[in-house]
């Protein structure tokens, strides 16, 4: 249940240009820029993976430990819509957004208000959403079995794209652009709409927002729905970036998402972009130069940032860690 798949194949992305017959390196700069560019591309995707988790933390001060499982459900939905109806992933992404927002609202009202009244809601949220995560995983495994599912990459275009001399599959570029659009839309929502402004008010202080007459529960419910939708969209593109979808991928995704948002400041959705890119670039550097140790990275990055700078890179000293 810890394994990540599909990334390793990537480290060999450029082997014709980099490795000679003996398998030794002869073009270090090319390899370095290659890793950095691929890192930024992956980083945009990881931003999408972490963004929803961070939005929920920022607004409700709870950790949705089932985030990775909602991502998995998004991927399963895309797989199902493609194999049964032949829907293009972009169409599926649109559907997933609508459906996941609608799923998010009742889940919020069922669980979160009661949770927030408890003695230590942040801690208990971990355990509670862990239970939700187990239920999702179990139902998915019972319904679909535990096999890996993937989508053909050609759906998002054939052939490589050459970016600053690095060849990348079109599907990656596509997923990165889609992630960037999603991040931009969240920015526009938070800073250009009325509901977004109210959301930021709740982030600053839930109690004061309540006292000003803001319908805190509704604002939070919408944020929760958006968060699930973001996870779902990330799931739609997961087959192209991570290689495949399995019912038990949630835990590994959660650690990654948590590393991303802790690096990029908890509770600051835009910091997630920086966290995602730092994470993506360091992951690609690790996979290029130390590939068998690359899976250590999210864990070590997470521990290091929590210990050295728990408030994150953009953070002010607002939270007690």
């Amino acid at each position, binding site marked *: 249940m810890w394994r990540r798949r599909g990334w390793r194949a990537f480290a060999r992305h450029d082997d014709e240009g980099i490795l000679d017959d003996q398998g030794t390196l002869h073009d270090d700069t090319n390899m370095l820029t290659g890793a950095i560019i691929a890192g930024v591309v992956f980083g945009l995707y990881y931003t999408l993976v972490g963004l929803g988790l961070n939005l929920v933390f920022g607004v409700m001060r709870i950790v949705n430990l089932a985030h990775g499982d909602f991502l998995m459900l998004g991927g399963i939905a895309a797989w199902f819509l493609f194999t049964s109806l032949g829907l293009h992933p972009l169409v599926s992404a649109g559907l997933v957004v609508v459906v996941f927002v609608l799923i998010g609202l009742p889940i919020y009202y069922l669980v979160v208000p009661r*949770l927030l009244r408890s*003695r230590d809601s942040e801690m208990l949220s971990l355990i509670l959403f862990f239970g939700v995560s187990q*239920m999702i995983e*179990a*139902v998915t495994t*019972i319904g679909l079995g535990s096999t890996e599912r993937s989508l053909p990459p050609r759906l998002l275009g054939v052939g490589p794209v050459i970016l600053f001399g690095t060849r990348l599959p079109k599907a990656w570029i596509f997923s990165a652009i889609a992630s960037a659009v999603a991040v931009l839309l969240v920015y526009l929502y938070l800073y250009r709409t009325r509901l977004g402004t109210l959301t930021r008010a709740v982030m600053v202080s839930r109690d004061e927002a309540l006292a000003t007459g803001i319908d805190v529960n509704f604002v939070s419910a919408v944020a929760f729905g958006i968060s699930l939708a973001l996870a779902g969209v990330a799931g739609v593109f997961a087959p192209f970036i991570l290689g495949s979808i399995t019912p038990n991928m949630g835990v590994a995704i959660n*650690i990654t998402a948590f590393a991303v948002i802790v690096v990029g400041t908890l509770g600051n959705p835009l910091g997630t972009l920086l966290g995602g890119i730092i994470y993506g670039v360091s992951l690609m550097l690790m996979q290029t130069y130390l590939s068998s140790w690359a899976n250590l990275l999210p864990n070590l990055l997470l*521990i290091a940032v929590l*210990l050295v700078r728990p408030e994150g890179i953009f953070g002010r000293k607002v939270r007690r860690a």
Partner: protein
Amino acid sequence: MPDTGAEARAKLVRRVILDTSIAAVVVIGMGVARGVYSNELMLFNFVMFLALAQGLNIIYGFTGYLPFGYVGFYGAGAYGFSLVVMHLHASALVGMAAAAVAALVLAVILLPLLRLSGAYFAIASMAAAQAVYEVVANPDLENITKGPYGVSLSDVFAPAFSYYIALAILAFTLLLVVWLRNSRFGMSLQAIRDDSVSAAMAGVSVVRGRTIAWLLSALVAGLVGGVFAWHISVFYPDTAFDLNISIFATVFLLFGGATTLCGPLLGVFILYGIYNVIGIAVPQYFEFTYGALIVLLVLFLPNGLVSLLTNRGIRVP
């Protein structure tokens, strides 16, 4: 009317006798069960989870830190045992000592995590456990740890002896909890958990208290991991660092009720019992059930089964 010194002491002695006899009944019961019931592996797993749930109780129940990565110490113990037995051809008891040392060393390395609190501590400890797993299971270290291909310790295989050692570890753990529940040190830990600033002002050494609880808790998991390696004798890093071990222990503890002696015992006997009836055949049904159970528990009974009694003012050992 407040107790006089002598009355208070008599009351304390009665409590300790009651707690100790509960511990004794459980340990002796699990020992007798081995002679009566033939599925030794299942009984061994019960003993393991009884000890793990109590080990987690030491750190969570008494200090409020919930390490999601508790399995890291268990895995460290299992590999501490295996490395010494494989490479130094040491006896199993030396291996058990190595398991304890491995878990304690890891706990000391992770001491800075205690600076974090709540969710941050839980997640960071989970990341730490996974980091240890990634190192142990790394194919580059195949010569040392056998990497992802697993360990085989047939030389020291001794199912009966290792079962009784596991019982001894369970007894040790239960006595630790009895001691914490009835000693000045245990009280001071609970004071730190409830309000660390006030406790510090009352002269309680916060850092020392938390450190000791953390090390004891890690020691229990390391010993259990070591005896697991010994009893099973063939296993993979995926089994020794299976996150489900942390999760089971956590759910059993929370279901029964932390800080008590009976709570985690009840949690293991009830939930792990159900698991053995319905879960083995189709683990997903159990996974779904305990997922739902966790959600309901957190929402409606956040202090566990025993809180049904404690909320009515009845003291539960």
